[in-house]
């Protein structure tokens, strides 16, 4: 890494740290604010409408079960909406290129993908979806899936911090408030900023241009800036263009790239401040933030160094530039900005990409893969990152808390058998899903047709796909052909498991903790702030991730790394 790279990294982290507090304060105001706020009058009609539609009082608190049922009902309706909008897009307006609807397996995969905040794209956006499909069917989920994630995080934090017998909030109220007061204004600002950098925003049909070689090039047009903003902010990642943020129309400049990188972890980072405020222990919020950032920085440094070192074979042959591995990277971003973007998009469960992860060196590619396999808790998706991390916190508090000689408690709430049972379900279900599907695909005929490369690299491609789907990340390692019914279905199943089989236990934990009487802190209480706790949390996250994935990662990128140094490429 060059000195300028370090400077960029420091600038970047400083900017993120500065954003964290105001965003956290905004979240507390939006999610916990009672009456008397300037925006109350604007929200009033929406609240009445939500109340009518759901037949509930959006101001009344819900139990964890009521909250969870609302999430499931809302998600199911969203699923139906998008599934049919996609399926019938050929008959619907705003389809200047007259694209027909995708097949049922692809429509299912795509719908689930957006519903779960994954945005895995087995399709090419600009070459198969109408403007209506992109703007309504998909962008609707870009907003709501992020809002659902943040609502679940808020419900969990409330369960942890509220007194005995408290409710965990009201889902409909949280959904409306997060969408209207955080996501819409923030993406409006970001899309204008992006448009100022040259990201396109129009409803035109594709531009046909004659190239210098005398051939015809078709350049897709469309409302890109508006979709790019929420794709980034809501950690969705599904680009308007197939090339995503590597496409010059979606991410034209270095400044735009920096803004996008800043927006990816913004909400997740702000949520840690929200946690601190809610728990009345801001140091705890920062301890969690620090643990996340430590993992992120190590990842960035390893990834960037590996990319900068490049491929020894290329160097021997004299075909690569001295500064490292530029294969699959945009010249306007270079190695560091690509490595940083890749680490961020993997860490924060975003999935937008500005370079081709498939073309990274084995260790460079291992970094985003490992970040996803840690459970998308290094900042993680909007809301999903915080609630995932809190599950790790509960586990950390349990194991290490025993060592101080008390029944473990988190912020005064005792961690008992019920919470541990739910926490291990939330942690182990995704891990199991990734391992089982990867193993299944690696020995079945349909699975083996997918990888574009043989050997360990092929295994990495399969592993990355299921990790990305289960982690609700959505970035693709690429090189894997997944638009086949078995891949579409298994990946969709992985996305559903990774989303809802985590949300369910997390909500149950919220309910179980909300019912408990908090114990006041004392000298004998396990401390959840300060460096010791941060190190413990880091160790737990790393140990659980490393222990579960070390074998399969060894068979994939690690073996590939050693083979590369012996002159074998895949």
């Amino acid at each position, binding site marked *: 890494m060059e000195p300028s790279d370090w400077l960029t990294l420091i600038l970047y982290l400083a900017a993120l740290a500065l954003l964290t507090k105001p965003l956290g304060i905004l979240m507390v105001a939006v999610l916990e604010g009672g009456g008397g706020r300037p925006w109350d009058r604007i929200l009033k009609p929406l609240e009445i409408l939500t109340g009518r539609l759901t037949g509930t009082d959006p101001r009344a608190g819900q139990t964890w079960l009521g909250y969870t049922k609302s999430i499931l009902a809302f998600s199911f309706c969203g699923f139906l909406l998008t599934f049919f909008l996609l399926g019938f897009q050929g008959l619907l307006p705003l389809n200047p290129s007259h694209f027909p609807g995708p097949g049922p397996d692809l429509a299912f995969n795509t719908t689930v993908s957006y519903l779960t905040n994954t945005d895995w794209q087995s399709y090419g956006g600009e070459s198969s979806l109408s403007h209506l499909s992109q703007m309504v069917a998909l962008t609707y989920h870009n907003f709501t899936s992020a809002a659902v994630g943040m609502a679940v995080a808020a419900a969990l934090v409330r369960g942890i911090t509220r007194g005995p017998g408290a409710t965990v909030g009201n889902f409909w109220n949280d959904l409306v408030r997060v969408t209207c007061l955080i996501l819409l204004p923030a993406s409006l600002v970001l899309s204008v900023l992006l448009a100022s950098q040259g990201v396109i925003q129009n409803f035109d049909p594709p531009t046909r241009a004659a190239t210098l070689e005398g051939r015809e090039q078709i350049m897709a047009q469309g409302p890109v800036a508006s979709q790019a903003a929420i794709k980034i902010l809501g950690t969705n990642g599904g680009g308007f263009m197939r090339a995503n943020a590597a496409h010059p129309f979606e991410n034209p400049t270095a400044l735009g790239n920096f803004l996008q990188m800043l927006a990816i972890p913004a909400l997740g980072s702000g949520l840690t401040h929200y946690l601190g405020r809610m728990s009345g222990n801001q140091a705890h919020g920062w301890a969690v933030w620090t643990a996340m950032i430590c993992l992120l920085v190590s990842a960035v440094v390893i990834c960037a160094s590996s990319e900068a070192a490049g491929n020894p074979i290329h160097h021997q042959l004299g075909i690569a530039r001295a500064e490292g591995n530029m294969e699959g990277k945009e010249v306007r971003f270079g190695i560091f900005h690509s490595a940083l973007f890749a680490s961020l998009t993997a860490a924060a469960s975003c999935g937008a990409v500005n370079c081709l992860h498939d073309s990274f060196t084995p260790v460079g590619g291992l970094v985003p893969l490992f970040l996803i396999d840690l459970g998308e808790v290094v900042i993680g998706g909007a809301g999903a990152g915080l609630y995932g991390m809190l599950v790790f916190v509960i*586990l950390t508090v*349990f*194991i*290490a*808390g*025993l*060592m*101080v*000689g*008390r*029944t473990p408690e988190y912020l*005064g709430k005792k*961690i*008992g*058998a019920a*919470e*541990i*049972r739910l926490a*291990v379900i939330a942690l*182990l279900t995704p891990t*199991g899903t990734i*391992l*089982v599907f*990867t*193993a*299944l695909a*690696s*020995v079945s005929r349909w699975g083996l047709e997918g990888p574009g490369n043989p*050997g*360990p690299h*092929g*295994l990495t491609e399969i592993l990355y796909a299921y990790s990305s789907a289960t982690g609700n990340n959505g970035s693709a390692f690429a090189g894997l052909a997944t638009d086949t019914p078995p891949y579409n279905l298994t990946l969709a199943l992985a996305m559903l498991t990774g989303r809802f089989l985590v949300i369910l236990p997390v909500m149950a934990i919220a309910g179980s903790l909300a019912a408990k*009487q*908090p*114990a*006041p802190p*004392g*000298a*004998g*209480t*396990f*401390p959840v702030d*300060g460096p*010791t706790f941060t190190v*413990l949390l880091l*160790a737990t996250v790393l*140990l659980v991730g*490393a*222990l*579960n994935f*070390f*074998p*399969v990662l*060894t*068979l994939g990128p*690690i*073996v590939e790394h*050693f*083979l590369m*140094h012996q002159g074998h490429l895949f």
Partner: protein
Amino acid sequence: MAAKSPPPFDLPILTRAAAGAFRKLDPRLMGNNPVMFVTLAGAVLTTLSLGTAGSDRLFVLHLAVWLWFTVLFANFAEALAEGRGKAGAETLRKAREDTMARRRGSHGIEPVPASSLEPGDVVVCEAGDVVPADGEIIEGIASVDESAITGESAPVIRESGGDRSAATGGTRVLSDRLVIRVTSEKGGTFLDRMIAMVEGARRQKTPNEIALTILLSAMTALFLLVCATLKPLGTFSRLDFPLPTLVALMVCLIPTTIGGLLSAIGISGIDRLLRRNVIATSGRAIEAAGDIDVLLLDKTGTITIGNRMASDFRPARGVSELQLADTAQLASLADETPEGRSIVVLAKQRFNLRGRDLTQARATFIPFSARTRMSGVDLEGRCLRKGAADSIKAHIESRSGRFPAEVLRLVETACRNGRTPLVVAEDHRVLGVVELKDVVKGGIRERFAQLRKMGIKTVMITGDNPLTAAAIAAEAGVDDFMAGATPEDKLRRIRSEQAEGRLVAMTGDGTNDAPALAQADVGVAMNTGSQAAREAGNMVDLDSNPTKLIEIVGIGKQILMTRGALTTFSLANDAAKYFAILPAMLVSRFPCIEPLNLMRLSSPQSAILSAVIFNALILVALIPLALKGVPYRPMGAAAVLRRHLLTYGLGGLAAPFAGIKLLDLLVARLLPLS
């Protein structure tokens, strides 16, 4: 018995535990412990695959043997922990041998076997009889030999009414005669409960143990999955992993160390408590002791030495000290309370006043009563009284006397100094104040300071007035005190602390303590106390030493710490085991992986075997730690955490690297694997 618990590792217990290790291989018993059950299944699978092993036969044989050892070592740890208790239970059982009881029925007294007694039956015990069941003494007073239970050979006095009315089955009446109403169900006597507890027969998992078992089971399931999916993933990479190798990897990864020692930790905790002569009715109570936030301690006997002693005479104006001492002595002559006796003694020491025989002097003794709160004597027309200031005041004023202001000041001064003032009056005249002094136990201040470091708040409970209480509280260094406390106040205090989320422990012996003992999260009843108190509490201290509570808290914490430390150690171990086994599994197909063989282990087979042997041996090596508990020093949570993290976290990461390397050197030299 309990005090004479067997030494930790004597030969008969070790032999019995070794036999027990094999008995516990019964799959129905192993099912209680998912981690070891999976290990057992792994051992069976490896043994079965011996038939198809081919050239690797010897290697697989060694693996199988060490996997069986792993299971046996874990069983041995549990059997050893139980065995230490069982040896103690033998002694107890002798006390329970079937005795005959004299039951009082409608046709007078009839002899029946003790086993046929039911709650509500009334039995008579005379000198030499063994008390047939637990019960309440309803008539009589007797000296009772309770050594079978407490190990204390000096007989104790048991009597009807009051707080010493509990009779325990298995104890022997030495003199006089007792009539006892049986309160315990058959098989549910104190002695039965003790035996069950000691043997661990009816041991149920504690809440925390359940939570930890869930976590360990989940880890086990996950590692099972990791190893199972490795087979197809290997196929993709054109690697055929043999079953014994996969089993070896799995057994090394699943938390066998903590899984194998978990129940031994719990049982040995109960055993440690027992060796301090405390019987817990459940493991749950011991665990709760570790969580205690507030200790309610009775002042008398816990913080101060038994009883108050008269220390000074403070006469009113116009009264000589001698006159006060003389009157006070007269008023106390018939007072058999320790306070009363101390006044007589002080008067004798100071003024050489001898106790006089008043039986001829037509004296009428007025004993202390809770209503009047005074005692004294009516002697030759003189009405001598001593008592609390307000009751004497009322007494004087009823006789149209005046309570002088300067005596009130004397009373207040005494209170402020932590003394208990007794006002002495003759007829309607106040003579002065006798100061009684509390003696705070030596070393108690340091213990409270330790408790404070552990985050435990101490509250002193006393019937004294607030001023006296404050002075003693300051001297003893407690955090808070409750003055003028009634049993109802205690109960209220416990409830309010609990409502704020704190866990409360207390000791008690009286019947009126029973509700509070039952309400407290940890209620330690004194064995000398009433049957009601012993039933209400969840622990009984056979030594009847209220300070024991502090040790109980320590043991509770130690159990949790030991579990946490071994879990951390167990999980941290996995890193090194991966670096031993994974390269060994892959190196045949990918020789380039050799740099991952961090320990430079000599051969793939030796690497795998060394990891498995390490895994088995570390279990044995940690048995003493599991039985004794991690060393425990009272200090703040943050400091304890850092210390344990360094020892068991970092130690857990590093130890297996060294251990496996060492074993590999031995295995490579000593074991011909092919």
